């Protein structure tokens, strides 16, 4: 049983990690907290469903199309909503509130456009499941893990070693100074949000075949992803992944060996402990001071 629990906990953790990457990215590159990631995930799942299942496009094409739309959405939201807010120099909490409003809109818009039903996302792979360490895991879950790890590595490299990534980080740390250096901060911020939205939408498409597609698919996962990001070090790409996996493992271990009723309690308790004892997370990521 232990193997099964560890494997499934890690898989769940990778899902959290993918969401956490989005949160950390936005924070690292623009200093803001975004509560709508979970719902962008749901949007991605619905979009993927539309392209893959309803219109019958091949998976790869559906994937790309969903990503493009998510990118556009992220850019659009940044341009219309967050740029205005930043220009008016409001308290960061208003931006958080705006993301909460976006979250409400996304959830209910998805319901209005698609449906309240639970939709069935067809399998992507012909093979049902593979055996990992003797435990049967759905193929899509393994795909999810692979994608998460790729993203983590890719993003980390991008943020730290590429020119544009560094420009993004600079804009987040001090946008006036960055502009003085000739960095196009507006583009940088826009791209950040676009990538984050893309990450979430991607996660949604990957989760669709595993969990089905319905309007509250992303909400709880979003919050847990956020927790995972903080545990690993908010703003750190590796941290997001590690934090997510750690959270997934804690949850699954708790519910199998201790108690499923108090599973969330223990997970959140651990989070609180982390915050009180080591708020910068596992990877010791310093917070961006105002």
């Amino acid at each position, binding site marked *: 049983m232990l193997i099964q629990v560890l494997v499934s906990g890690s898989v769940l953790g990778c899902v959290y990690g993918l969401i956490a990457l989005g949160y950390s990215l936005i924070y690292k590159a623009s200093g803001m907290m975004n509560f709508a990631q979970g719902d962008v995930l749901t949007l991605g799942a619905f979009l993927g469903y539309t392209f893959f299942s309803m219109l019958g496009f091949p998976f790869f094409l559906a994937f790309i199309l969903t990503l493009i739309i998510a990118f556009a959405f992220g850019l659009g939201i940044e341009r219309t909503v967050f740029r205005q807010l930043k220009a008016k120099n409001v308290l960061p909490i208003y931006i958080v509130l705006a993301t909460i409003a976006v979250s409400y809109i996304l959830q209910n818009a998805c319901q209005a456009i698609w449906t309240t*039903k*639970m939709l*069935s996302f067809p399998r992507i792979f012909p093979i049902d499941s593979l055996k990992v360490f003797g435990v*049967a895991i759905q193929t899509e879950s393994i795909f999810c893990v692979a994608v998460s790890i790729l993203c983590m590595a890719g993003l980390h490299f991008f943020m730290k070693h590429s020119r544009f990534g560094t420009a993004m980080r600079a804009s987040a740390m001090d946008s006036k100074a960055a502009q003085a250096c000739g960095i196009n901060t507006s583009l940088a911020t826009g791209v950040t949000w676009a990538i984050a939205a893309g990450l979430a939408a991607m996660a949604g498409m990957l989760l669709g075949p595993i969990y089905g597609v319905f309007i509250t698919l992303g909400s709880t996962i979003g919050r847990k992803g956020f927790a995972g990001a903080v545990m690993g070090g908010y703003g750190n790409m590796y941290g997001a992944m590690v934090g997510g996996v750690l959270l997934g493992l804690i949850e699954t*271990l708790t519910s199998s060996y201790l108690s499923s009723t108090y599973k969330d309690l223990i997970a959140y308790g651990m989070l609180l402990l982390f915050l009180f004892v080591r708020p910068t997370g596992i990877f010791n990521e310093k917070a961006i001071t105002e």
Partner: protein
Amino acid sequence: MKKIIALILSVMMLTLAACGGSGGGNNSNNGGAAAESAASNGNAPAASDGGVYVLGSSQPLTGTNALPGECALNAVKLAVKMINEEGGFQGNEIKLVSYDDQGSPEEAVKVATKLVEVDNCDAIIGSCISSCVLSGGEMVSSAGIPMFGTGTSPTWMQQGWDYVFRACQNNDFALPSVVDALVELGVTKVAIFAGQDDAAVAGSNTFQDLAKAAGIEITTAESYVEGDTDYSGQVAKMINSGAEVMFISTFGPTQPLIAKQLRQYGFNGLCFTKDLYQVDALQVAGAASNNFAFAYPYLTYTDPEECDIPVVRSFLEAYQTEYGELPTSDCAYRAWDSVMVLKEAINLAGTTDREAVAKAVGQVKGLETLAGVQDFTLGDGEGLHSSNIFIIENEKYILFDKWLENGGWEALK
């Protein structure tokens, strides 16, 4: 400065008054005699305000349970339309007032208050979420307005509210047949997976009590939090506890998820759910749904042709003509039956007076509805006291007894 605030506030208050009045503009109870004091309320005027019967509806139209809510509302709308075509209730045209209780008890109370006080309803078709019926029940009953809740948890019929009734399944009444079936099969170990909402918990508790009394051991009882989609930890524990059969007591949307995860981790045995395993869950979980059984009065279908019960079939055809598709949730049936029982009660009473109608409900007997024959004469406010058992085989529903006859259980062992 503060003057401006005061001005704005007063304007808003006027707007509020306008909003409040939009629901009916009627001069119901004098101010303070709000529904809370049971003593005062003989003064609620009899329904007809110039030949209109106001029927209220409170359903979750947004949130996790938006689907059942929507199906229920559609069924009520259809029923109202058809009854109005036949002349309405005692010649009064039915006006439907519907609100979204968002599946939240707080909203349900506000909606109930609005329905009772502002819209002055003559009857209410209540929420399919049992906690919402619970929260609004007290005020509706003390106001003397008959309400047919469409949730399946036993709790809200145990509060002693005289004006609250149920024309659909009470999980407590169905579970004994499930336990009997298990005993007959010789099952001795069962693991439970339950949600934390009222209906799930009640279902799980009742099952545990019945099972223990029948000598069945409950190897473990796991739960999950609404919103969670991964149950691998719980599943691992359930399988390792050595259970032969699983009892799943959850909301609709969770069913396919737990089914898939149980099958994925290696449990292919018999599972019982506390109520209907819906047709959309069947589609999502596919082959994982096989060997899921449940005790329930009715099924949901993808095509009216599949249905061989005449009264259900004609309902399905009417629904399909009106909405272009079949209801995915059985809440549609529950709501429909509630309106039919109300109609029968009004006929028996011969008037739309609320108190008379409520009394008349207790005389409804032998009424054929989608759920079967309803009988309210037992006096507990419930119309159904037993139900069928179905099981899923090859992704289709068949009667449990038939499955047994065909050797299904032997094959599983």
